[in-house]
């Protein structure tokens, strides 16, 4: 994925998520589901916050002409995906254990959020790791 395409993709994704969140939360507020709307907004703030880090980095790379991916970044991403997947299995197990207290929409939302966070945390830790094999 080249720099320009990556930047545009991230920007469009973030904007779509923001617009979608605003639309759905307004609908929820109008139906009186205030708690769900607030949870949705908070979840989107976390996701868009994470995406904004990548957008900023991608924009800086685009300006300076630095390749967005190289051997090391690809390796870090691959390892992070592996660790993220492993951690997210446990996230899903925990969520399934508490499935009586959550409805299916919340379960799915927390599960996906858990997957995103576990990947991002793994990526952050591995990006600073020495001696990445």
């Amino acid at each position, binding site marked *: 994925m080249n720099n320009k395409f990556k930047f545009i993709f991230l920007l469009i994704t973030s904007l779509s998520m923001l617009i979608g969140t605003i639309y759905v939360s307004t609908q929820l507020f109008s139906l009186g589901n205030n708690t769900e709307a607030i949870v949705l907004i908070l979840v989107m703030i976390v996701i868009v916050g994470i995406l904004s880090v990548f957008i900023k980095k991608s924009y800086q790379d685009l300006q300076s*002409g*630095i*390749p967005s991916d*190289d*051997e*090391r*970044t690809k390796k870090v991403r691959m390892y992070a995906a592996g660790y993220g997947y492993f951690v997210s299995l446990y996230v899903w197990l925990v969520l399934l254990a508490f499935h009586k207290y959550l409805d299916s929409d919340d379960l799915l939302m927390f599960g996906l959020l858990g997957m995103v966070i576990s990947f991002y945390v793994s990526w952050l830790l591995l990006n600073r790791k*020495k*001696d*990445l*094999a």
Partner: protein
Amino acid sequence: MKTKLKELRARFNLTQEQLAQKVGVRRETIVFLEKGEYNPSLKLAAKVARVLDLTIEEIFIFEDRDLE
């Protein structure tokens, strides 16, 4: 792994940014390579060696314990 990359880069009057551009990697990768905190692939090592017009062995030094 030990490396002489930092001294060699200085000898060629290259900044980390310039070397990164010539090799086609991100600057952070050069930083990690210089600190000996990242083992490059054979392809990356060869690219660095080609840019500096040296052999891989002159830049990256693998000790016995690195190869165990």
